[in-house]
């Protein structure tokens, strides 16, 4: 199981890099869905996971929301807004991928220095931090509103993995509450994207510059 878990975590990192390297919004959304599925099933592969009704139900809810409902909401949003591609980002795709790789390496270095990381355990912490950084990179370098939302989701995925690595087990109601918050956030952001598209004839947030001192 641990070997499988390591493959899953490696796939999470690869998906990060793939998202940084693509200009097609549809693929980017599919990638975030795949990452949601990978991260949703990761806890079940970790050693010490107990099969029971509640953990399995929680896992199913997380998988459903992160892997399918949220990508579906985003896909609907870009279909209604007729956008397909990211426009010229602030940082090129190749440069983004390279920077993403450097950040991933840095994340492994950083996690090794944390006082808690069990060196032999599955690398939840470094992958979590790497994912968090990749999400931040997506948010700050891209111009389309939808990519910023994707970046936010990737960040949340990273924090979720980080929490897993710390062994922070939240009670089920709180965990569902956090998932619901995330879902509503994507929903509200989707509506906002729709309005941005209507008002500005594009979903590019770099045009949002009217408000300043």
């Amino acid at each position, binding site marked *: 199981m641990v070997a499988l878990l390591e493959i899953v975590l490696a796939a999470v990192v690869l998906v990060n890099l793939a998202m940084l390297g693509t200009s097609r919004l549809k693929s980017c959304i599919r990638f975030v869905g795949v990452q949601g599925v990978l991260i949703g099933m990761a806890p079940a592969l970790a050693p010490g996971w107990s099969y029971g009704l509640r953990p399995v139900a929680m896992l199913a809810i997380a998988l459903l929301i992160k892997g399918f409902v949220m990508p579906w909401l985003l896909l609907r949003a870009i279909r209604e807004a007729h956008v397909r591609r990211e426009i010229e980002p602030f940082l090129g795709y190749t440069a983004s991928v390279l920077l993403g790789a450097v950040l991933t390496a840095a994340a492994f270095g950083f996690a090794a220095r944390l*006082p808690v990381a069990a060196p032999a355990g599955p690398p939840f912490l470094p992958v979590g931090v790497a994912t968090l950084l990749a999400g931040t990179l997506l948010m700050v370098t891209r111009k389309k509103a939808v990519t910023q939302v994707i970046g936010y989701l990737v960040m949340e995925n990273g*924090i979720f993995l980080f929490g897993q690595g710390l062994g922070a087990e939240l009670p089920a109601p709180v965990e569902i509450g*956090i998932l619901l918050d995330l879902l509503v956030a994507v929903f509200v952001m989707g509506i906002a994207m729709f309005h941005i598209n209507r008002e500005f004839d594009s979903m590019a947030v770099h045009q949002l510059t009217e*408000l300043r001192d």
Partner: protein
Amino acid sequence: MLLALILIPSLAGALALLAPSARVRWLLLAGTAAAQAALVAAMAVRTPAPAFGGWLALDSLGFLFLAIVSLLFLLVVLYLGWPGARDSRPERTFAACLLWLLASMTLVTVSQHLALLWAAIETTTLASAPLIYHHQSRRSLEAMWKYLLICSVGIALALMGTFLLALSASGGAADHADPLLLSRLLAAAGALDPDVLRAAFIFLLVGYGTKMGLAPLHTWLPDTYSEAPSPVSALFSGALINCAFLGVLRGWQVVAAAGLAPFAARWLLVFGLVSIALAGALILGQRDYKRMLAYSSVEHMGILSVGVALGGVGQFGAMLHAVNHSLAKGLLFLTAGNLLMAYGTKSTRDVRGVLRALPASGTLWVVGFLAIAGMPPFGLFLSELTILKSALDAGRFGIAATFLALLALVFAGMSAIVLRMAQGEPADAAPPVRRERWQTVLSPALLALGLLVLGLYVPPGLGRLLENAAALLGGAP
């Protein structure tokens, strides 16, 4: 009882979506606000029993902020006023989101579980975002987008902090299934891992500090306050950012109980002083009076942080200041709404002769300015003096001098703008003198009265509450 406090506004919000007319929606808002206020008043007499195994409970700190939220909400609903027979305002989503915002802010104040607290604060962001876009303009859309993104990312960092808190507890109290209950964290504070705890506090401070509007994390705040409808801005600056402040204070409680208060105080002091300084610099020459009020909120969040960081009587001062600031900012934003309605502009240059054109609102505008600037006999004078005194008592003269100099800078910047707006002759394009609606004057007038009373004397009941809240910050369980 605690559950009712959250369920009533949640259900009323759902009903508001179905309500057929604006009048029904206003009645829903008013009924909920009144019920909430009555329940909170009853809780002042008898502390409600904790619910859900201690997840929901009301301590002095929570009660203080809950009382502010309820009072301000009631006055804002009063300000919105009884709609005419053909009015469409308050609209469906507006009324529903206001009620859900009330529900989520209430949940923040009664949460004793730090992960639940996180979820509640994130919910306040989501419930309040549609309120900003109420005018459906490009500018309000931009403000809403910035608010949603920046605050969501900030709050995501606070979730990291919450996880780290759980980790710091895993060494000693690992046998507990649920280490994030505040009472357990405080009881086990001595056994928490100090390094992890430090990291946790920084994440919580940066995360919730973003929503609180501490500089340099405040970038969303002026845009939001200036573009949102004025009653919404009043709720944001009077109630919502207090909720984020409560998030920081919960982290502070744990850190202080673990004996790391000096470490946390340094961070709060730096963020606090930077906030006051930056607000002072940006208020000078500000051209939009709602933005000016927004920067004033940044300043006062800084003052609150400094008060908490100084400890001792400064924490009492900070709690008193939180009450005073909420009343004053409610007063100012509601009055700013009246000015905006009459003049149709937010520009400080185009508004002249308010005292002559709108005698009631003009007077309230000047009174609000004197109060927020910390002039006697208003409440903020007393609370700022208390905070200053705690700095002097502790022998931290450098901080006291910086604090005073920065307050003087803000005073100079604001007085130039506000007094120029208030005095003089209304320009040709100014609105004709007309009778103001009594509702739009009554709410701010009540707030002004409250500020005056708090400046002259602190009622013993409130004094006890503030002392208890400050004691919780001092590391008491």
